[in-house]
């Protein structure tokens, strides 16, 4: 297996190609522009469509058109562009058009800056724009995982006929790591619903309007049923969690920093462990609840003022104290900072069982 050294943005692009993406629409924005630039070079070679749209609003609606026409379609952006896509995402959800949306988060609010952040968690996980729709949300923490989740994202999008978001951050997009690229797949997809020109058959319609409240309610319930089904897609990673008294919950790049802090804490004899949600919606609530049930405290680490912490609190339901440590505005947490938070937590709730110092599990 050859390993390539790639940037997160490029690795996602390449994986999308291998997942059979047929159309990419987007609008430049830092820190993800390598992704469209990669697509501009490669997608046409694969017989696909690359189009730089006039705006994110246009781009997401082009995705609607292409996705609705039955091909794997994709878009990528960062915070401000993601905001502009909210109406379009709501339409995609409502009309059940699959697609993959990448948001490489940066410092906000407003124009903010282009440094890594995780401040779009709420926007990505709580609602696909207005109305009751949701995105499925995947959060890679390594470039390899970015590849793997890109494939998964396309599959989930097809399976649930719903947009799937890959929620990364500027750092993941810009960093290079060795990756084993997935083998190209020829996706087997059911697109009997797609508008491809009716041929001799009955005409098909992609739409999200239903003036009859009862009918729209039934549709909304159908969407909620899908989200309930999607619970089976829940993914997370445990790291040194079995005997952890201090459970860190963190995703994406913050989780990697936390992992190093966990190692350092263990080296110092503290029983820290890490639970890393990989799917943010559906959220691994049960896993968090279970880990919290065995712990003395939960520590949520985010690059935001505190967003995922709400989902953690919802899962923990007051069983143990949930602490929060966040940096924002593009500042990235570092291992020593997280270690300090672990130490503080340990001091507050009792150090617990001393674990053997050193050694990486």
């Amino acid at each position: 297996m050859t390993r390539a050294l790639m940037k997160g943005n490029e690795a996602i692009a390449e994986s999308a190609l291998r997942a059979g993406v047929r159309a990419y629409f987007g609008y430049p924005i830092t820190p993800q522009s390598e992704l469209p630039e990669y697509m501009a070079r490669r997608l046409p070679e694969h017989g696909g469509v690359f189009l730089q749209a006039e705006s994110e609003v246009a781009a997401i609606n082009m995705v609607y058109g292409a996705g609705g026409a039955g091909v794997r379609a994709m878009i990528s952006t960062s915070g401000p562009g993601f905001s502009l896509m909210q109406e379009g995402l709501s339409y995609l959800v409502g009309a059940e058009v699959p697609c993959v949306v990448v948001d490489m988060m940066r410092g906000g609010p407003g124009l903010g800056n282009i440094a890594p952040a995780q401040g779009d968690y709420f926007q990505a996980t709580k609602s696909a724009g207005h109305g009751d729709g949701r995105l499925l949300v995947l959060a890679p923490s390594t470039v390899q995982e970015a590849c793997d989740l890109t494939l998964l994202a396309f599959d989930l999008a097809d399976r649930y006929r719903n947009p799937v978001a890959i929620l990364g951050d500027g750092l993941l997009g810009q960093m290079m790591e060795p990756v084993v690229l997935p083998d190209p797949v020829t996706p087997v997809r059911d697109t009997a619903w797609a508008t491809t020109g009716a041929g001799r058959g009955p005409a098909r319609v992609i739409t999200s309007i239903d003036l009859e409240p009862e009918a729209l309610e039934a549709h909304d319930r159908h969407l909620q049923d899908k989200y309930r089904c999607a619970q089976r897609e829940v993914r997370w990673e445990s790291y040194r969690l079995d005997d952890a008294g201090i459970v860190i919950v963190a995703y994406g790049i913050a989780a990697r920093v936390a992992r190093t802090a966990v190692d350092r804490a263990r080296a110092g004899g503290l029983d820290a462990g890490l639970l890393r949600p990989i799917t943010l919606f559906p959220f691994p609530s049960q896993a968090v609840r279970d880990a919290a049930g065995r712990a003395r405290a939960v520590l949520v680490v985010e690059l935001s003022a505190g967003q995922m912490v709400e989902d953690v609190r919802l899962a923990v339901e007051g069983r143990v104290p949930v602490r929060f440590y966040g940096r924002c505005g593009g500042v990235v947490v570092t291992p020593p900072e997280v270690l300090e938070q672990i130490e503080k937590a340990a001091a507050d709730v009792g150090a617990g069982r001393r674990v053997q110092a050193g050694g990486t599990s």
Partner: protein
Amino acid sequence: MATTDLIVAGFGGQGILFLGEILARAAVLEGKDVTWLPSYGPEQRGGTATCTVVIGDETIGSPVVADPAIVIVMNRPSLDKFEPRVRPGGLVIINASMVDRSVRRSDVRVIEVDAMPQAAALGDARMANMVMLGALLAAAPVVSVEAVGRALRDHFPPPHAPQAAANIAAVARGLTLGLRREPKRASSIGA
């Protein structure tokens, strides 16, 4: 520990990111895990460029490093910024051509390399970054010299073979200089 983290810092245009990238590619060739993290954004234009590389035998956790084991500083502002952050017992490699002061801490190892004239002597002062890379390999063999050579040859495939050769020569020069030069202060060993 089986993980080494280092930061390369200097002006934009000094080949900071390239130094880090060759190191990372060498690590990949050796089957190691590695993360390469650029500073990106507005600093790119004219300002400071930094690059963080973590190399490990096992899965790397944080690609973000607050307290690096090694820093390679290519100019004075970078020394000012990163000297305080190096881990005690760590290593500071200085491009003496662009840094007009020496290290103040006494708990780190220091190597000073007058890289620019050395590189200029090899044909291009801009290869100072490769000289520094060589010096790094001398003081802390985080990857093998062979792997670096292969990484450079991969990066400059046959039509560009002369460039590969020139860069490899610069690395070799740095290596020699680094091996000749005993670290100036070494209150502790290991990186």
